[in-house]
């Protein structure tokens, strides 16, 4: 989520666990064990009942983030297992800390080796991050003026490396609501309603992958399954091809866009991935373009 101060980025991130499908008992046992080993369980808590939401401060060290230490301990990525890891103000994290995130995002587990033994902690989490569009925060703001130079903006955005950005499927610009809009608007859709929609889409995926061992949702599809379940017609294929060139997307991003498109189609209850699903999925790749900060 990229947007100016006060536009509601942190507010929305905090609400994410409330729209994710509920934890199953076996997921909870995994997550609770990690928190138990880290000594992070609340005393009145037995099993953790809700997906964890971890929001480490940007001054966090590599070890505290991914785990390790003399007597190896799980890090924030493992404490977020089966839940959400939220990095607020992403460019404020040190570059080296951001880079060590890449492996766990890919492997969904962390291996810590010591001379005489090694331990493995699972870390399957949803990665969510927020950032301002520029150092002053008001680049592209409807009312306020940005005081940053193009060079400053460029450097700021490039603190997030290409390979990390590549792993972020939904890159959304948040525009602030004006005071009138804030006071006028009726309450939004509640979390329970949104969660039902999410669960319905998940159910469709469970059924689709019933015959595929270890695959329960779109994110877990391999390339062969992608060709089968996210097949594109000629027009969509052409659209994706030109987007790949225009945005200079990697092969990883290609697969990921297809998965997002498949998910958008599932949320609509649509059997096939259609052009507008794909167009929306490509639209979430905003920041991949090199000229983001140069747009008017």
């Amino acid at each position, binding site marked *: 989520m990229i947007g100016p101060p006060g536009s509601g980025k942190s507010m929305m991130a905090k609400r994410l666990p409330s729209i994710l499908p509920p934890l199953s008992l076996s997921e909870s046992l995994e997550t*609770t*064990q*990690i928190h138990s080993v880290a000594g992070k369980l609340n005393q009145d808590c037995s099993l953790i009942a809700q997906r964890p939401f971890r929001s480490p401060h940007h001054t966090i060290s590599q070890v505290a983030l991914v785990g390790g230490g003399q007597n190896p301990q799980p890090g924030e990525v493992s404490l977020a297992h089966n839940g959400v890891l939220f990095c607020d103000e992403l460019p404020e994290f040190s570059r080296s800390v951001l880079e060590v995130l890449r492996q766990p995002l890919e492997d969904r587990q962390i291996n810590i080796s010591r001379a005489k033994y090694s331990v493995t902690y699972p870390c399957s989490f949803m990665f969510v991050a927020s950032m301002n569009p520029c150092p002053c925060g008001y680049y592209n703001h409807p009312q306020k003026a940005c005081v940053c130079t193009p060079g400053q903006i460029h450097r700021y955005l490039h603190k997030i490396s290409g390979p990390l950005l590549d792993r972020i499927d939904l890159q959304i610009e948040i525009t602030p609501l004006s005071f009138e809009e804030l006071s006028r608007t009726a309450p939004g859709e509640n979390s329970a309603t949104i969660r039902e929609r999410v669960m319905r889409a998940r159910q469709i995926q469970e059924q689709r992958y019933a015959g595929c061992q270890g695959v329960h949702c779109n994110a877990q599809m391999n390339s062969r399954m992608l060709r089968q379940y996210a097949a594109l017609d000629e027009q969509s294929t052409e659209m994706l091809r030109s987007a790949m060139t225009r945005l200079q997307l990697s092969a990883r991003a290609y697969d990921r866009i297809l998965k997002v498109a498949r998910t958008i189609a599932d949320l609509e209850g649509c059997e096939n991935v259609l052009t507008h699903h794909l167009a929306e999925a490509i639209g979430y790749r905003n920041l991949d373009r090199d000229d983001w900060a140069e747009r008017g």
Partner: protein
Amino acid sequence: MLVKVFGASVQGLSALPVTVEVNASRGIKFFLVGLPDNAVKESHERIVAAIENSGYRFPTKQIVVNMAPADLRKEGAGYDLPLAIGILAADEKVSLDKLERTMMIGELSLDGTLQPVKGALPVAIKAREMGFENLIVPEQNVREAAVVNQLKVFGANHMNQVVRFLNGEDVLQITDVDTRAEFYAQQSNFDFDFADV
């Protein structure tokens, strides 16, 4: 006299049993063997203080403690309780009755108070898997350990309570948690809602 007390070592996300063997014979030395790390070695001073401040005497004998299996990495202060109980049992101050059916973990303060440990849940899972009847943990860890059923989980605040429990002089409260009921009750109880956005 030679006694065995059962503790556990947390390795990654699972626990392995550790047998603390204590032998008391004539002499006045203290030996700790079986690859304990520095934190465990330092526990000697702490355990002496905890025992004496709990109203017992540290035996004026030669005490040899072996932690088995010897090749297993042992770290942290979770062995304080089995070590202290083992030393008192070797000195015939603790009845052996329940000891072989009981696993215990806990760090000791100098005054004999039990401090919470990391990994009580994996330890409880291991205790049940190995067929132990009882698990004694510091009071602060009791609810996480009680997630495991078919195991009597006892929480204690002080070493004294554990000694009296093992000697049949006093009871410890069993903690029983209806894990599933609590789990499902809290599942949709969120502090924040998208309706506010």
